[in-house]
């Protein structure tokens, strides 16, 4: 395995900029997810690492070696494609052996490595099947085994779970993570699913319109989003637009005042995660907003309450579904207070 350095990567297709000035250091054995809506440039960046897309500017270094001009077949990256991309005319073991043959691995060692790769993804019983005889999850396991059998320097996954159903998605995701950790694989995982990205990674990169929005550990990004895009893309957030009145109080455009520490003159928005809000009949905590219950949605583990505050401000509140919850008073039209701790307010001043 090796570390990967992306230095000022840029990709332009005709006039549209797919990736603008992307720099990142991926450490040896680290799993980094690229997250963003479709068309944000995450797949293009992955393909630049694999060598399928030539950067307009910038460099790709794998293990300290500049591979920007190296063709894909000499880069020794192991890629898993969104639609598996197994060779339909080869059996499972032939698929896995292909890369080893390309790397001129001697016959005896090849067979042993194919077997090891099959064992690794628990597909030994399927070695003589053709891809079309396998389910989606099994095909994806074979694709993973095929990519890893060549012992790549970097493991690349392009939305590998998007064609699997929800339950299987989680299962395969956990398998990928434990394999990655057991083998110490330097991994880049591209996804548009924020929960998937949060759950699997060491660090994540959030992209939007070709520009890196924020890089960091999942909890950093979730708790301290750098801007409104990150805050909104990674989970849900209530935004209160306004301006600071002094360095302790924030006044929203709708006329509500909040206590907020560390206010800066440029702060124009306070964001609060729905699960950091509580409801009560009397005002509680440092910040309370009077509101009217509009919609109550039962989500299972939590209850999502949509409220209307004065000034047509919509507030979303997630209540944990405990037996203590008073569903009786949660009726549409009920007048309640929405409360949150001042330290749970995220300040935006970009």
């Amino acid at each position, binding site marked *: 395995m090796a570390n990967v350095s992306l230095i000022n990567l840029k990709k332009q297709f005709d006039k549209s900029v797919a990736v603008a000035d992307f720099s990142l250091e991926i450490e040896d054995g680290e799993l980094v997810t690229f997250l963003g809506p479709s068309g944000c440039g995450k797949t293009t960046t992955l393909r630049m690492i*694999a*060598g*399928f897309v030539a950067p307009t500017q910038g460099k790709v270094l794998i293990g300290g070696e500049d591979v920007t001009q190296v*063709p*894909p*077949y*000499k880069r*020794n*990256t*192991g*890629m898993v*494609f*969104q*639609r598996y*991309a*197994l*060779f*339909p*005319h*080869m059996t499972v073991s032939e698929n896995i052996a*292909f*890369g080893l043959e*390309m*790397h001129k691995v001697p016959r005896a060692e090849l067979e042993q490595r194919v077997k090891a790769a099959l064992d690794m993804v628990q597909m030994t019983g399927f070695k003589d099947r*053709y891809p*079309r005889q396998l389910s989606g999850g099994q095909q994806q396991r074979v694709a993973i085994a*095929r*990519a890893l059998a*060549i012992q790549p320097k970097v493991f690349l996954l392009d939305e590998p779970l998007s064609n699997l159903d929800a339950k299987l998605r989680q299962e395969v995701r956990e398998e990928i993570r434990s394999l990655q950790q057991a083998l110490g694989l330097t991994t880049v995982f591209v996804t548009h699913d924020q929960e998937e990205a949060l759950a699997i990674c060491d660090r994540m990169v959030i992209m939007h319109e070709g520009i890196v929005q924020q890089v960091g550990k999942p909890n950093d990004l979730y708790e301290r989003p750098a801007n409104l895009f990150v805050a909104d893309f990674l989970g849900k957030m209530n935004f209160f637009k306004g301006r600071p009145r002094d360095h302790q109080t924030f006044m929203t455009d709708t006329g509500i005042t909040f206590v907020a520490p560390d206010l800066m003159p440029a702060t124009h928005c306070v964001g609060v995660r729905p699960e950091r809000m509580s409801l009560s009949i009397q005002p509680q905590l440092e910040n309370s907003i009077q509101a009217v219950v509009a919609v109550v949605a039962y989500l299972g583990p939590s209850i999502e309450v949509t409220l209307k505050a004065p000034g047509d401000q919509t507030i979303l509140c997630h209540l944990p579904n405990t037996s203590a919850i008073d569903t009786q008073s949660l009726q549409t039209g009920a007048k309640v207070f929405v409360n949150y701790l001042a330290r749970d307010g995220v300040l935006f001043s970009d």
Partner: protein
Amino acid sequence: MTSSFASHGSKKALGASLAFPASLIVFVIIVVPMFLVAKYSLNQFVPGQVMKAVFSLSNYVNFFTDPYYRKVFFSTLQVAAICTFLSLILGFPVAYFLAKTQASYKSLLIILLVFPLMVGNVVRAAGWMVVLGNAGAVNALLHWLGLIDQPLKLLYTPFAVVVGTTAVVLPYMILTLQSVLEGIDFSVEEAAQNLGANMFTTLRRVVFPLIAPGVAAGTMLVFILCMNAYATPVLLGGSGITMMAPSIYGQISRASNWPMGSAMAMILLMTSLLISLFANWLIHRRYQKTMVS
């Protein structure tokens, strides 16, 4: 349940009734004449009369024992094989490019490709005559460059027939190959490269096996078109080379030898059919694994 069965049945009946007019036309204008040709081919030629209805294989025996006819037969096979091979070699890169390109002018390129098909073979052959003739473009160019003193004989040679026929069948080959190539998921190529295969190995190990059945179909189509070519060999081959279709026309129209002409037509038909069936069987055996049902 009952209603679904009923609707299934009526759908079938509807399908059959829709297919009926076309089937009738095919039967009347193709199957019936073909039976007549088969029947005539067993008749005997009597000069002065059209033919005498007997049951004899003498026309077939004549065909394969007479060196002249054998030469016609084998040069037809040869020209068809060469043209098919050339169109495969020349057509593949074009088809590959067309299948892969995301360019906005892709449909324009395909229209350009189909364009020659809108011009009749005779007109196109006339074009080649202008190009290949003694005073034609090629000779004029070579003369101007000082490479030749006397014009090269290009027209009325097998070479001219090969060039002209290849030009006729090339669009068919490209369109067939392109549709086959469009059918494969290009990410398998990327997967192969990612696993260490260069461009050539990727084509050989991944792309070719996947497209082989389709390529075989395209090759067969083109081969049969070449075998049965008429206008191009007549106009560009002249007396320099005789192929089956012009020869059949000569038998029937000029020599008035309907039985021999019919026998030759049957031989041409059977040869095309046998070669296609054989190739099909071969491909199915070789690439059975590839066939994704």
